[in-house]
């Protein structure tokens, strides 16, 4: 009888351990920013857009992506969030967006925070430096003469 109890206990412990082991949460999202600003210059023009490209891997499936670009000294902020569509509910994706930089965005230094949340509630954030520069005012018709000295 005693041996039986020990075996039963062993059975229960094995079961509990097995389920606990299998329910391990997927690892947190991983983000690699591959391009910030045109050709990864970290620069964006006022009234133009910021190229943003990132490789994301989220075992727990992407629930949302939140991009925040805020002034280093100042309160101006550009925010963009993605909660539906092509990046959501997927494990791996290449995020590629051209984020509008309003014409009234003050010139200067900014921080960019790129946050991914998965379905388990785990988050990861990648950061980058962005500089908002003056619009060079390139016009389609003037293009070829623009860089004359």
């Amino acid at each position, binding site marked *: 009888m005693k041996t039986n109890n020990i075996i039963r206990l062993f*059975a229960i412990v*094995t079961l509990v351990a097995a389920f606990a*082991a299998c329910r391990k949460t997927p690892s947190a999202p991983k983000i690699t920013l*591959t391009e910030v600003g045109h050709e990864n210059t970290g620069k964006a023009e006022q009234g133009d857009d910021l*190229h943003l490209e990132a490789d994301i891997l989220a075992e727990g499936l992407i629930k949302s992506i939140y991009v925040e670009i805020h002034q280093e000294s100042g309160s101006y902020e550009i925010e963009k969030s993605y909660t539906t569509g092509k990046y959501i509910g997927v494990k*791996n994706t290449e995020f590629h967006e051209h984020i509008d930089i309003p014409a009234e965005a003050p010139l200067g230094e900014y921080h960019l925070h790129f946050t991914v949340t998965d379905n388990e509630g785990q988050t990861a954030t990648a950061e980058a430096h962005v500089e908002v520069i003056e619009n060079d005012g390139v016009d389609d018709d003037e293009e*070829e003469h623009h860089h004359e000295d």
Partner: protein
Amino acid sequence: MTMKKNITMKTKYILIPLLCALSACSSTDKDTAVPEIIPVGDATAPLNCQEYPRGGAIFFDYLFQDDTELGAYNLEIHNNFDHHTHSTEAGECKQDPVKEPVNPWVLNKDYPIPAGSTSFEAKQTIPVPEDIDPGEYHFMIRLTDRSGWQQLKSVSIRVL
């Protein structure tokens, strides 16, 4: 006799939980393969460097395959007036001078795939608007399988 029965009972107590433990771990998340975007011969569209007149249409046609189950797909178009790159880029075509968009074509649409499909030929007619900026565009195909793996194909096209 009773001794033998006892041993069988004991074995059961040990074996059953062990089997459960093994099956519990193996049943989920076995899908590690990314779905595939495959050309369908002459009908395949769009292809890299193809040109499309405004007011015309792109007759999208590709074959999708996955080893377990396809999920959904998304088609997206954004301008490439500034000659930016994609890590999955198929290649460059002839380039116009860099220009700033005035009224660029923007498309971003999700499409379902019937449940249970492992192979699906996706066909869509995508009208090219009359009033958009002509020039170079990126046509992005994002295919996701049921467990969330995504394949991306980017095609460079030109709107005339």
